[in-house]
């Protein structure tokens, strides 16, 4: 064993920062590896480590990019790991024991792990590549976060996609693109979809489920050429047909990424050849793991085997178990493909005359189940559409347990409470979460170890945090292990993290004990009276709602934006957005704004999406002067509060106008300006159903519908989420609009969770219930709501008045004393 002279520490270098590389590092750390090794990790992608499986979710827009990270860049630093992200390794010198990177840099190692994963397989199709630029700009592969981003961006303004390949990846890509409104055709060479996992009958049923999503499927079809130079026009099939499209996704399979191993003189067949310790034959100090390896002739394309391999390497490397060995994985997979559950293990179809084949096929329900039995043992199973029996079958498959004589019962949940029985039936070793390799035993261990909620078990074990298809089963196992003593995650219902009360309980206590300041709330209601920085902003807002006049203002309990009445920017400067009710301004106002922008060298003057003007990049100490010179009230573009009312020109000017939307917008804004609320409230008033002010997607949207009538919609959104508002009521006058909008906003202020926008609040409460409460006044709440709203309205003071008389020392003092601000670019 080569040891660096003097020091007892070895250099462990990992090439490839994907699911296998990063998992191996984690397993090494879990075995105390931080003591033995200085760890360096190379990753060609410029990120930390993310869950590749969830790229399908990112493509569909159900997960944000940030949600799929397993280890952020910071994690590496925290664990003392030298992460070289964005650096490609060129080759390895196994004799000199150094790694050479693309920029010519070298890094010596004592132990090396190669985890380079796979590359997309590119079939032989004419004109895929532009001779000068690599792939045609409209041709995509689906492997990395960058691939996914590019596809999302391209899908936005293109209409027809062809996905080449009808396996897991191709179907996920197709479903993702279809969710962006594209017309998608899947072109698959073999005779049925997912032929690696499914038999023909199951493939046919899957095809129907995929077609039900509006995706077209061509099986037995070979793509021969792509047509089109700058823009793609379509693809040509071998049978002479032409399919028009403007985007092509290649998902025809993967190939182990072996280039650096080959260049370094390691044995490569289909993958990098390794022994049972995951070592390459050429060197005892070089290991390989993941999709790039070939072990006992097998290569793998799913994560489950990777978890086992990573453990073996870590055991061997750290000496935790020098004889640990990997014996191959009997691939049992459980997947969600384009929303369809698929589980498969072992052989797909009978291979010998004596093999038993039991099939239960229900095309109408999209369900197919089959098992193959040899000599009384389960050697294969396929489940599609309903995978309830998967865990049980997997147990039988992996451990070869004896099967019931009544073979059909293998496929049916016969009588009894099925969930309980099958969870109890599960062996401790049975894998529950394939994505993260978590067994039933590990979940039970977390429960015995004190985790009492499904959420905390998921955090502790990572079960259910991959593709998510096993969440139900995880919950069942937790329940079973806890003997029914599972608890709801209590903090999920608290209004703020620092005080163990729901919003209703909190408000009740605040009223009953007349708690007027944030510090008195902590003293009375927090565990041990401890204050909590992350709870302060929400409590400040709540106290202002509960006590419009009487609350005691504590400046440290406000977020910086609310201390200085402006929105903090990336360099510590602020933006100034004066009120411009309903988006209406005057030449005089514009002149003043222009003068102020000149006088204070404002780097950027910009028209906002909220129909007013933003002065960006103002240093904190200039805020009072800027406000003074503007002489306009605050537009509240920084607060969790009532923001703007967008309007259209309405009856005064528009030839289609049905109501004076501009005036109504101004009236709404004049009345409700600046009100704090659990999250932002953005409104709009449109003069006719053409909806030029986008009223359908506002927290409160108002539309003139003719004959003096107005629709009032609530719960709309078009920011991070898109939702059309629900019609709360159609009313007969602008005055009624103002009253009803106020009543709704007060109800929302009093009942919504912190940071819960109306687009979540309205569907949670239900529009019928809101109508019953606010329009029909079924429980007699209306008068009280109107009254408390009036009180809040009466308490309004323009906060920019504080510029003339700061309320505390140093309120507008710079927080970065040696940094010349602004640093934002000046246009």
């Amino acid at each position: 064993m080569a040891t660096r002279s003097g020091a007892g520490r070895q250099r462990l270098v990992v090439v490839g920062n994907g699911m296998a590389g990063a998992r191996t590092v984690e397993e090494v750390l879990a075995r105390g590896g931080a003591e033995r090794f200085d760890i360096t990790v190379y990753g060609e992608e410029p990120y930390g480590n993310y869950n590749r499986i969830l790229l399908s979710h990112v493509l569909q827009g159900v997960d944000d990019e940030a949600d799929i990270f397993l280890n952020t860049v910071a994690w590496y630093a925290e664990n003392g790991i030298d992460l070289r992200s964005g650096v490609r390794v060129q080759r390895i010198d196994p004799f000199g024991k150094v790694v050479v990177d693309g920029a010519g840099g070298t890094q010596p190692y004592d132990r090396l792990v190669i985890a380079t994963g796979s590359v997309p397989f590119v079939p032989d199709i004419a004109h895929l590549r532009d001779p000068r630029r690599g792939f045609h700009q409209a041709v995509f592969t689906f492997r990395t976060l960058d691939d996914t981003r590019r596809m999302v961006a391209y899908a936005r303004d293109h209409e027809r996609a062809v996905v080449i390949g009808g396996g897991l990846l191709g179907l996920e890509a197709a479903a993702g693109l279809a969710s962006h409104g594209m017309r998608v055709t899947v072109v698959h060479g073999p005779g049925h979809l997912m032929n690696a996992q499914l038999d023909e009958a199951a493939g046919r049923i899957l095809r129907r489920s995929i077609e039900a999503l509006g995706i077209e499927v061509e099986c037995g079809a070979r793509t021969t050429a792509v047509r089109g130079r700058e823009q793609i026009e379509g693809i040509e099939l071998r049978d002479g047909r032409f399919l028009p499209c403007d985007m092509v996704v290649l998902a025809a399979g993967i190939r182990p990424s072996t280039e650096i191993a080959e260049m370094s003189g390691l044995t490569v067949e289909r993958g990098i050849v390794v022994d049972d310790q995951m070592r390459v034959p050429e060197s005892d100090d070089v290991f390989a793991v993941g999709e790039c390896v070939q072990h006992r002739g097998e290569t793998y394309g799913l994560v489950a085997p990777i978890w086992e391999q990573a453990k073996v390497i870590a055991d061997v490397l750290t000496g935790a178990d020098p004889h640990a060995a990997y014996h191959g994985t009997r691939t049992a997979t459980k997947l969600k493909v384009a929303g369809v559950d698929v589980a498969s293990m072992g052989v797909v179809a009978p291979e010998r005359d004596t093999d038993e084949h039991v099939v239960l096929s229900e095309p109408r329900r999209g369900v197919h189940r089959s098992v193959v039995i040899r000599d009384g043992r389960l050697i294969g199973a396929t489940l599609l559409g309903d995978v309830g029996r998967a865990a049980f079958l997997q147990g039988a498959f992996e451990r070869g347990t004896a099967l019931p004589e009544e073979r059909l019962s293998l496929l049916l949940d016969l009588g009894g409470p099925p969930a309980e029985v099958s969870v109890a039936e599960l062996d401790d070793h049975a894998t529950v979460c394939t994505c993260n390799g978590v067994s039933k035993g590990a979940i039970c261990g977390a429960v015995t170890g004190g985790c009492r909620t499904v959420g905390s078990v998921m955090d502790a074990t990572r079960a259910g945090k991959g593709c998510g298809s096993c969440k139900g089963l995880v919950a069942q196992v937790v329940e079973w292990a806890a003997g029914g003593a599972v608890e709801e995650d209590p903090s999920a219902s608290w209004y703020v993290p620092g005080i163990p009360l729901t919003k209703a309980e909190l408000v009740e206590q605040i009223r009953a004990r007349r708690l007027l300041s944030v510090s008195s709330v902590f003293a009375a209601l927090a565990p041990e009276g401890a204050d909590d920085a992350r709870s302060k902003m929400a409590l400040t807002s709540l106290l202002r709602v509960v006590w419009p006049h009487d609350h005691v203002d504590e400046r440290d309990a406000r977020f910086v934006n609310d201390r200085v009445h402006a929105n903090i920017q990336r360099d510590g400067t602020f933006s100034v957005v004066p009120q411009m009710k309903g988006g209406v301004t005057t030449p005089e106002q514009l002149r003043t704004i222009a003068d102020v922008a000149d006088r204070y060298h404002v780097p950027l003057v910009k028209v906002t999406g909220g129909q007013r003007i933003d002065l960006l990049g103002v240093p904190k100490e200039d805020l009072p002067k800027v406000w003074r010179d503007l002489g306009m009230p605050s537009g509240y573009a920084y607060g969790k509060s009532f923001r703007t009312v967008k309007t259209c020109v309405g009856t005064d000017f528009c030839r289609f106008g049905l109501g004076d939307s501009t005036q109504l917008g101004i009236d709404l804004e004049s009345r409700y300006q600046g009100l704090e609320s659990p999250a932002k409230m953005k409104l709009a008033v449109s003069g006719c159903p053409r909806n030029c002010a986008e009223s359908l997607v506002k927290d409160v949207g108002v539309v003139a519908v003719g004959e003096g009538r107005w629709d009032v919609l609530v719960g709309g959104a078009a920011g991070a989420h898109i939702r059309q508002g629900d019609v709360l009521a159609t009313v007969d006058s602008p005055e009624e609009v103002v009253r009803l909008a106020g009543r709704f906003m007060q109800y929302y202020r009093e009942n919504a969770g912190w940071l819960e926008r109306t687009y979540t609040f309205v569907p949670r409460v239900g529009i019928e219930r809101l109508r019953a409460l606010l329009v029909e006044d079924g429980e007699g709440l209306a008068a009280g709501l109107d009254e408390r709203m009036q009180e809040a309205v009466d308490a309004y003071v323009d906060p920019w008045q504080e510029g003339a008389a700061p309320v505390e020392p140093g309120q507008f003092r710079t927080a970065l004393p040696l940094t010349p601000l602004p640093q934002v670019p000046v246009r």
Partner: protein
Amino acid sequence: MSAEPQVVADLVAGSATAVCRVEEIPPGEGRAFAVAGEQVAVFRLRTGVLRAVSAVCPHRGGPIADGQTDAQVVVCPLHAHVFDLATGACRTGQPPLRTFPVAEADGWVLVGGG
């Protein structure tokens, strides 16, 4: 308030800067100062304790003095990373903030180091 004599002695023995009067930092808030060419954020916690840490967030340069505090931590206003005020350690995976000795003497806030 918290005039830990030893800290004051150390500060005076070494180089200490009187950055402001105690009442110039409102309770629970922070203010930033340049101390010997370093940007330092000084907090007066609601418990009365004074804390001083580097004023620039290691994440993306956020103004730490504008952050919100409790008895233990400060939260950066830009992306809400959380730092322990006593040790500077980050609880959310960023590199730590530097800490500086700080104490009150005769109503002045003294910051050492730099």
